[in-house]
């Protein structure tokens, strides 16, 4: 899986499913960088074929509406959309 990794403080496994074209996704990624946590992200719109279908099914498991950004935290909490307060609280 072509995840990009950003090094930072270990707050468990954090995965951001995002679109390369979306400004709210960008804001979410920049917020995670600002919080200096260790996380991975993937741009679903840049995937093709089987890889794309697999990731789409995975995102739908966390967020059936298949909207972006979808942020999955280590404890299973899912934060959909650029919810700055929610993300700051969850990673405080």
């Amino acid at each position: 899986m072509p995840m990009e990794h950003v090094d930072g403080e270990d707050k468990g496994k954090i995965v951001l499913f995002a679109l390369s074209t979306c400004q709210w996704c960008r804001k979410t990624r920049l917020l995670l960088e600002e919080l200096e946590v260790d996380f991975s992200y993937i741009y679903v719109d840049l995937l093709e074929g089987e890889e794309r279908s697999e990731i789409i099914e995975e995102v739908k498991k966390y967020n059936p509406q298949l909207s972006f950004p979808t942020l999955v935290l280590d404890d299973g909490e899912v934060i959909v959309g650029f919810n700055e307060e929610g993300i700051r609280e969850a990673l405080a």
Partner: protein
Amino acid sequence: MSQADDARVDEFYERLKEQVEEAGYHLNSDVEFTKALLESILVNEDRYGYGACPCRLASGIKEEDLDIICPCYYRDPDLEEYDACYCGLYVSGDILSGEKQLTAIPERRPAPDERIVRGEDETGTLGLESISNLPLPVWRCGVCGYLCAREGPPEICPICKVGKERFERFI
């Protein structure tokens, strides 16, 4: 982004701004944010052949994505309820004047399993039976709701300027 791309985005921005203001809409006044979205719409135009919403996952099949070609079918209901479109590209007068703050809003588009895709050979009636004594069919613009009674939809919506593929037969 190359300089040529910059010029293309600037031209798109100026043209769109004038067009939407004329139709009574407002682009986000954060020019950097707005231009980044417009650049992404151009990326999608190049990638898919249509300017899909940058904040939604396009399928690459135009018939499945008619509802999310920018401006999308959800823009006006979102402006009404949340003062901005899903991307934050279009904002209400209250946000423009600073009276309200722009925030991310919930997705209004139905989940993939709940979407109704119009088949190519269907006329796209909105679940309504035709009224048999009307001399002409009535067409509805999916973006702004403009209605017109004529043999077919206009090439371009005279109100919001989207193409005729965005119309559905209403009556």
